[in-house]
């Protein structure tokens, strides 16, 4: 597969991933395209988040939860054997080692604390791979909240292990049988449900999508990935900053959190999408699930179904800030195929003893391809966020291998 869009050289100094502009805008993207019935709820989330984020007490509570329950900080692991094979210096930011096994827990603990601050007693979530659902169920159990998780029927089949985990944690899992029966439809259903439940429930959106303030708020809750890695690199490398920063992109939360730590450096940012779910690389301007961004659409403007072996990348759009970073040329978005991702997962297992989530394997697949094809000059330093562990995908892989 070709790499679709170039970086601008030198990378522009703006797009440093600060607060969005007026009305939640990242360039022309973002905004709050919510039905009127949800506007007041969004405003309340926005106000509460702003207050909480400026409150050292809230920051302290969140830091404690992240340390004691999620196991942060996560290590920065040099991938020694694979680096040698590829001729680059590859470092893995190990979100797979968090409690529940993916970066999703960072955002969920933040939003669950916020929900208690707003006096809500229940969390609503959508999930694709099930990782966000498991994280939500976990945070709800930890803080004494209820959890209702919407999940496409197709994903329920392919991520059965996570469905069981959610139910064991006490969450209600509601199968979604409309449309493609994947993440897009689960998100629509969660929004519909929230319209009737704003009084007692908080919608815990799982990625950097949705109406303002979600794309910004979720990125802030995930920036712990990038901030930690920045500090870890300062100790590791003479230059202090890797040449390339790479992450997979579904809605784009692990990538946004990673990029946020390096947006003000010369590091080149690369978001890796699934070939069949490449909102940033191939989408066109639209509005879905509350924000203006890039979405896969047909000639009539209908949203098309994404297809990816990785349930968490099976989304036909991308978060608005990624659309903006793309337009700025600050980040570049590339795609890899299902086969490349599976190959990368196997290679990481055999060289480093790590079975990655299929989502994360997409990021690695690009690193492998780019190192072989000269896009990553030999000796380059590369940070790759390993967003999650592969246990949930073992049955999918078993069918294929």
């Amino acid at each position, binding site marked *: 597969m070709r790499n679709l869009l170039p970086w601008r050289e030198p990378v522009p100094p703006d797009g440093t991933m600060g607060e969005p502009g007026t*009305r939640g805008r990242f360039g022309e993207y973002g*905004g*709050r*395209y*919510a*039905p*009127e*019935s*949800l*506007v*007041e*709820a969004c405003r309340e989330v926005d106000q509460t988040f702003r207050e909480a984020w400026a409150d050292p007490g809230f920051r302290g509570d969140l830091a404690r939860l992240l340390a004691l329950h999620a196991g942060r900080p996560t290590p920065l692991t040099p991938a020694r054997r694979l680096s040698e094979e590829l001729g680059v210096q590859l470092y893995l930011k190990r979100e797979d080692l968090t409690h529940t096994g993916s970066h999703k827990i960072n955002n969920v603990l933040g939003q669950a604390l916020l929900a208690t601050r707003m006096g809500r007693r229940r969390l609503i979530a959508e999930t694709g791979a099930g990782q966000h659902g498991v994280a939500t169920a976990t945070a709800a159990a930890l803080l004494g909240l209820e959890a209702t998780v919407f999940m496409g029927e197709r994903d329920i089949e392919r991520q059965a292990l996570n469905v069981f985990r959610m139910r064991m944690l006490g969450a209600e899992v509601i199968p979604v049988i*409309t*449309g493609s029966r994947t993440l*897009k*439809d689960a998100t*629509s259903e969660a*929004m*519909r449900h929230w*319209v*009737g439940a*704003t*009084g007692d429930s908080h919608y815990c959106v799982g990625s950097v999508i949705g109406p303002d303030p979600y794309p910004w708020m979720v990125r802030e809750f995930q920036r712990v990935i990038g901030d930690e890695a920045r500090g870890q690199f300062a100790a590791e490398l003479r230059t202090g900053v890797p040449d390339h920063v790479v992450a997979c992109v579904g809605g784009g939360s692990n990538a946004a959190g990673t990029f946020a730590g390096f947006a003000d450096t010369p590091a080149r940012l690369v978001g890796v999408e699934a070939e069949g779910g490449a909102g940033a690389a191939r989408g066109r*301007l*639209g*509005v*879905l*699930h*509350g924000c*203006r961004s890039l*979405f896969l*659409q047909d000639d*009539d*403007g*209908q*949203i*098309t179904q994404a297809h990816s072996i990785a349930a968490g990348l099976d989304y036909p759009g991308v978060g608005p800030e990624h659309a903006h970073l793309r337009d700025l040329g600050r980040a570049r978005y590339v795609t890899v195929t299902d086969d490349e991702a599976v190959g990368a997962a196997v290679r990481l297992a055999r060289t480093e003893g790590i079975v990655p989530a299929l989502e994360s394997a997409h990021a690695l697949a690009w690193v492998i391809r780019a190192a072989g094809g000269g896009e990553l000059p030999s000796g380059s330093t590369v940070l790759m966020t390993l967003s999650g562990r592969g246990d949930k995908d073992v049955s999918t892989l078993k069918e294929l291998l």
Partner: protein
Amino acid sequence: MTNSTVAAGAVERHLRARRDTGRGLLLPYVTGGITPGWTDYLRAFADAGADAIEVGLPFSDPTLDGVTIQEASDRALARGASVRRILADLAGLPDLGVPLVASTYYNLVLHDGPGAFCAALRRAGVGGLIVPDLPVHEAGELSDAATAAGVEPALLASPATPQPRLAEISRRSRGFVYAVSLMGTTGERAVLAASAAELTERIRRVTDRPVLLGFGISTPDQAREARRHADGVVVGAAVMRRVLDGAGPDDLRAFLTTLREALDQECDPPR
């Protein structure tokens, strides 16, 4: 209270004129392209005494619709419905004597851009527009394009909307104000929500534009009750469930006639 009669467009003038005779307004909905001869429903609606007709332009991801209109949208899209084809069908119709109001999600408006979209509505004889995922603070871009094309976008107000924002919505809405009766999606309900009366009363305090209550209104009794608070009703899912179950234009004419009669029993003294 904003008195905007002077600036009112054709849809609003029509609705105001009918309201001012004391008549309760009836705005039935049909999903465009739902059946091969779908425009026959429009004629039946007009015959049954509709005061305007809402034509849904189906979208793949109708996030504010319940199961009935979701299914209708899916079915229409599976039949090959598109904005272009539905508007072409409408453009070929003889005048029905009542205004047409399109309703759709903002993605379809943005697809060719709000300017081209509104111009296409106008050419097809559509005078009004409802976009449920476009709240007032994001509506500027569409309002400008709609004004230029002579299309009247009606904004939605919800039970959760604070009073100052209701005033803003009422001021910027065109044609009528769409009062969402309850905190939920479209779909039939057993009773009219308690929030409906309070919301319409709050809207009336800030505008004299026609106020139509929608979401959940399914029976003559509910229409009659809604009419005590609002200028009229929007009826969507109750129509589309019948259409999905195979009801033809004559069946729908009969159903809407029962709603018409219910509304007529609750008429106001003429203004």
